[in-house]
């Protein structure tokens, strides 16, 4: 539709209204681009002085002390916790999301498919602070037994070492899986629904069962979509703030590097949220903004990759 151009005015000149309106649209676009660019720029401007004053290595230190004049902060520990929680969430949410998408597109009868899809979408409508509240007060107590069992059985393995605390990385990962499930389901559903009927019918005509049809026709067709759905979910998981802040208990400063999923910890986002009260001098603020900048870069890369995967697929299809 962009190929159609409107009447070009009296003497072939653009009309004033067109110039203004087109300019307005262009301006809005430029503003949107500027917002993203400025996000990176302003975070960097605020973060760089503190990172330069950092007395330990910003990338490899596990310490976090944002005292003005004695800045010793590194992201290794929060990177570990962030990645751990996101990995747990992905391990649960990707298979579950794909299963849901298959159920909605290939199994559910027509009358059920739409309302069922809306139900999954409603999960995305629940505010994350409510997820957090429910996660720590209602859901976590139900997992005490499982966590103790994991610790008893696999405690020799660093991921499951004790002592087990109440608000753990493990529980946060499970709650986060529920939170990113709608994203993964919605996007996988979209690509599965586009599977050419000829492929599906061809498989069925050859005598495939429904599951064999899915395995040979639907899943190969939707693979790129599932990958980018998983990455969008990952992007969301990396940046989730308040639910994790509420669920995962923070660990006393000065503790050495800890790896266990059955203990507390802080992610990039929850570290910043927990210490918002410390934003009273440029040096400490800069330290937290540096953590925010790393989070921005991480989510930027993950989201960009997701879009590239799905757009390449569109180009081929």
């Amino acid at each position: 539709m962009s190929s159609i151009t409107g009447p070009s005015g009296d003497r072939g000149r653009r009309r004033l209204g067109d110039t203004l309106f087109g300019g307005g649209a262009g301006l809005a676009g430029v503003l949107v681009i500027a917002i993203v660019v400025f996000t990176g720029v302003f975070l960097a401007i605020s973060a760089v002085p503190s990172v330069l004053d950092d007395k330990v290595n910003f990338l490899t230190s596990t310490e976090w002390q944002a005292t003005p004049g004695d800045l010793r902060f590194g992201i290794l520990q929060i990177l570990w916790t962030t990645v751990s929680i996101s990995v747990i969430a992905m391990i649960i949410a990707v298979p579950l999301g794909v299963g849901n998408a298959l159920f909605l597109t290939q199994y559910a009868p027509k009358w059920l498919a739409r309302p069922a899809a809306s139900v999954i979408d409603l999960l995305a409508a629940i505010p994350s602070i409510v997820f957090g509240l429910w996660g720590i007060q209602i859901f976590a107590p139900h997992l005490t037994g499982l966590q103790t069992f994991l610790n008893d059985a696999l405690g020799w393995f660093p991921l499951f070492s004790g002592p087990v605390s109440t608000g753990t990385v493990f529980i946060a990962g499970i709650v986060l899986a529920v939170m990113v499930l709608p994203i993964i389901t919605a996007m996988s559903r979209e690509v599965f629904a586009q599977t050419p009927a000829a492929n599906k019918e061809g498989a069925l005509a050859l005598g495939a069962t429904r599951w064999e049809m899915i395995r040979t026709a639907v899943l190969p067709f939707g693979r790129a979509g599932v990958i980018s759905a998983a990455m969008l979910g990952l992007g969301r998981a990396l940046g989730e703030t308040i639910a994790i802040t509420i669920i995962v208990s923070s660990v006393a400063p000065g503790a050495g590097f800890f790896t266990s999923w059955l203990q507390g910890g802080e992610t990039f986002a929850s570290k910043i949220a927990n210490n918002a009260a410390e934003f009273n001098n440029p040096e400490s603020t800069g330290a937290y903004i540096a953590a925010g900048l790393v989070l921005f870069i991480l989510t930027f890369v993950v989201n960009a990759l997701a879009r590239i995967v799905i757009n390449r697929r569109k180009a081929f299809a």
Partner: protein
Amino acid sequence: MSALQTPERELPAALADSRGQGGRKVRNTIATVVMVLAFVIAVIPLVWILWTVIEKGASLLVDSTWWLNSQRGITPRIVGGGAYHAIVGTLLQALATAVIAVPLGIMSAILLVEYGASRIARVVSFTVDILSGLPSIVAALFIYAFWVTTLGFSRSGFAVSLSLVLLMVPVVVRSTEEMLKLVPNELREASYALGVPKWKTIVMIVLPTAFSGILTGVLLGLARIMGETAPLLILVGYSQSINMDLFSGNMAALPLMINNDRQQALEPAVERVWAAALTLVLIVLVLNIAGRAIARFSSLRK
């Protein structure tokens, strides 16, 4: 892509390795059960969460005090008070956000669809994708670094709104864009044929036709931002009293009200936390369902 060849290549193999084992039907049944289970597992937390907030929060909501009073002078020990200050705060901040984000989002969508050939449109489209994945805490830090640190303004409800703009714009853009693409080209051509300029065609013909999609985007965008907590933590302080001024002073919002008392153990405070959670869930769910319903019953999408 390879989708067309894949069945030819793989299906015989897939059938061969299970032929004669009698396991194909079993495997098919197992797969069906797994898919149904996946759906059931996904529904459990939704029902559980909704049930929890209703069970624990509903008792306060039926009282008009909840909707008409603030928490001024209320301590965790005292029963009473309402969420008026927080509801007003949430609505005011959402309104300020919408006033900025809706025009910006609609104009960007117009750029993407009606002026789609330009190179800037492709960059904008990518940027909108990045924005839709932007963590709310990063948006909040950006506004802090820009509005508070660099420009020297103090933390306020308006600063929160600014950061929420970043989260609302992509929702409005995508929903509007999708609907503009559905507007039949014949409508545009007919308008051009009558000598109507492009800008007037867009404003008088295209936008009204796509109105329902725009409304959906606005409602879903509002639902998204009203539930956000992270920007509030960084950009405004909580106040127990009513503050209608977006530009100065502490200001309550429902997520902040929940956050403020969430670690309280005293019964009156705990009750209010769940009641605030239920209020927030209700507002967000209503906006969400309204948005989706409008999208479904729109005239363009048949």
